[in-house]
């Protein structure tokens, strides 16, 4: 018995070493560029540090008090939630509709699928620059429309009330194609026999969609909700290129852009780290909530 355990351990050890050899390059990179920054940010959140001196001073919870008393935090969190919710909800609704269309045996399906996915693979910074031009009411293509209508179009990016919505529209545009590909993949794996049975029960396409397609697609909706929300609340590049949080800061600033500004424009690395830790906690909490709520509406074919 003892000998067998020893042999098994020897074999396991060899397997472990092989396993470690294969995962270690990735693990090292993750540890260096993901886990260590998280830990270090948590450490910095208790320090008063301006990024320049060798060491900061330990300030206990002072930086967290700054987070919760920051006069701009409400606007920044509000903007981030508006952006994330709008991108996730609107993009998913449009993507689902697009996927349903693409799922029919239309000619040139591959072409349309590629067309739908193209925005997602376009660099956000480049896409944002193109959108800046598209939205310009004096120079962009929209100016032709405004002139034809005899109206002076809105300057989206120069208006505190509209700038955020310009950013949201780009977020939606980029997300629709990505989500539609997942929805389409999901739709194409749905069991045919269920639909054949449903056809015997009802003629209503809406009922089939509501009571069959939607529940069967709920895992895809759930996956896209979680991954899309996490990606959306991290929005930074589109804000940086298009508005820098303005035109009157923080009219269109997101949480991540705000903490970047604190760190690199105001030299408040400690405060920015506290913002980052709070952001991490919020993200984990929202994701946890999404998983908890998922038990009520996500069906895994059971």
């Amino acid at each position: 018995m003892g000998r067998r355990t020893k042999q098994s351990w020897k074999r396991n050890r060899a397997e472990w070493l092989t396993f470690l050899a294969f995962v270690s390059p990735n693990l090292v990179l993750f540890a260096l560029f993901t886990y260590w920054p998280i830990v270090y940010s948590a450490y910095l959140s208790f320090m008063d540090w301006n990024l320049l001196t060798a060491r900061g001073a330990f300030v206990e919870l002072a930086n967290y008090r700054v987070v919760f008393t920051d006069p701009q935090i409400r606007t920044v969190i509000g903007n981030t939630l508006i952006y994330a919710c709008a991108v996730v909800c609107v993009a998913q609704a449009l993507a689902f509709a697009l996927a349903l269309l693409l799922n029919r045996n239309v000619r040139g399906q591959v072409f349309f699928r590629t067309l739908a996915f193209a925005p997602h693979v376009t660099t956000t910074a480049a896409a944002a620059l193109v959108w800046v031009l598209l939205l310009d009411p004096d120079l962009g293509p929209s100016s032709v429309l405004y002139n034809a209508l005899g109206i002076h179009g809105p300057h989206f990016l120069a208006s505190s009330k509209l700038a955020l919505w310009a950013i949201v529209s780009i977020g939606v545009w980029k997300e629709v194609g990505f989500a539609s590909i997942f929805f389409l993949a999901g739709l194409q794996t749905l069991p045919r026999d269920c639909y054949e049975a449903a056809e015997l029960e009802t003629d209503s396409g809406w009922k089939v969609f509501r009571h069959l397609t939607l529940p069967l697609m709920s895992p895809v909706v759930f996956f896209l909700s979680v991954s899309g929300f996490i990606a959306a609340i991290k929005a930074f590049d589109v804000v940086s290129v298009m508005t820098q949080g303005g035109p009157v800061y923080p009219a269109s600033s997101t949480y991540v852009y705000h903490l970047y500004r604190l760190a690199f424009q105001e030299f408040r690395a400690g405060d920015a780290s506290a913002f980052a830790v709070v952001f991490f906690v919020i993200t984990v909490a929202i994701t946890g909530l999404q998983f908890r709520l998922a038990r009520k509406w996500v069906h895994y074919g059971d």
Partner: protein
Amino acid sequence: MKKILHYHADHSRVIACAILCVTCVQCSSPRSEDPSGPVAITYWRTLSGAAGNAQDKLVAQFNDSQQAVRVTAEFQGSYTDLGKKLITASAAHTGPDVTQLGTYEILQFVRSGVLVDLKPFLDGPDGIDTSDWPGTMREAGEVDGGVYWLPFNVAAPVLYINTDAFKTASIAAAPKTWTEFFADTRALTTKDSSGRVQRAGTALWTDVWPYLSAIWSEGGELTSKDYSRITLNDPVAVRVLSEFQGLVRDGAAIVPDTASGGHRAAFKNGRAAMILDSPASFTDIFAQSAGFTPAVAAYPTGAAGTILAPGGGGLAMLAVTPENKRAAAWSFIRFLLAPQQLAFFAKESGYAAFTEASRKAAGDTLKEARFAVVHEALPHLKGDFSINMSPAVRESFSEAIQKILVDLADVNTALDAANAKAQQRIQNEIAKNKK
């Protein structure tokens, strides 16, 4: 199977060792430098286009002029990008030896020991004669008695005008005073029959810089250099910014967003008849203005005379530069600030040959109208970057200007709030600096 596993295990050890060795070698290999060769100096610079090329030419001239020091110039993007890279480099205790530097970072960098005090070099045997520097420009980079930043690419603000628009509006000359500027802006604005603005009198931007000169020239003051007095709500500032806001309310001024090219694009496209800007934009504006003839005029003057806020950037030496390389780094700075080189840079870039000696060295080439405007403005520069240097003051005032010009907020309320915010935050900054 057992053999295969052993084989894999052996291989995995070899791979792990190899990765470790490569990593160690990468980490431990120092920047090799031949002690008998020339001293290698790294220079980080900003500015693209003509001003960037001119700097590269100056570096080549320096390298050709002597054998002892070899400078390598590295472009680091915009002032903001350069600032961020310097912060990152400083955190890692690395970076260039000499850098071009805007004004935002000076104070924080000095307080954190990132910059070298240049005063011993400046006043030493191989120093620079600053007696012909205009106004208080030598004091611009002074902090606590040391000199940490020296002006290099200096800009005096100017007024760009659309000469065709002036002719159409029957205005003979560019406005000389702020009162004339506000009146001309309204007169230059054209509207169609439905009241839509066809061309605004001016396009404004929400940076602090263009308004600072107007406030100073009208007799206002926003901060003292040591921040013991902060008056962002100075009655003169309220009056001046109310005038600018009035232009926006009347449709005589527009405030375009930066991403679309901002005020500069509006002027080049003929959507605005005047802009307040830097002479560094000479090349772009004169080459790209469409359908009209642009010209440069002097910045308007005010009740207190002409007092101008300098723009542009300067030079600094970083504390990471080893002691034995600092003389070489200084020799490069001194070269860039020599009359011949400043004259060359001015001719190539549009920035000012800001010393009397460099203007003489430039000869007739700087007598062309647009260069002359800049050089006549130089004696009026006030070397005070206190608004820029403190993030508390800078961000508070900048946000107030945005609210006033974009959201058309009440000027008094916006400036009172900015002043209160700046005063509260400056106390924190002073307390941190004392620590």
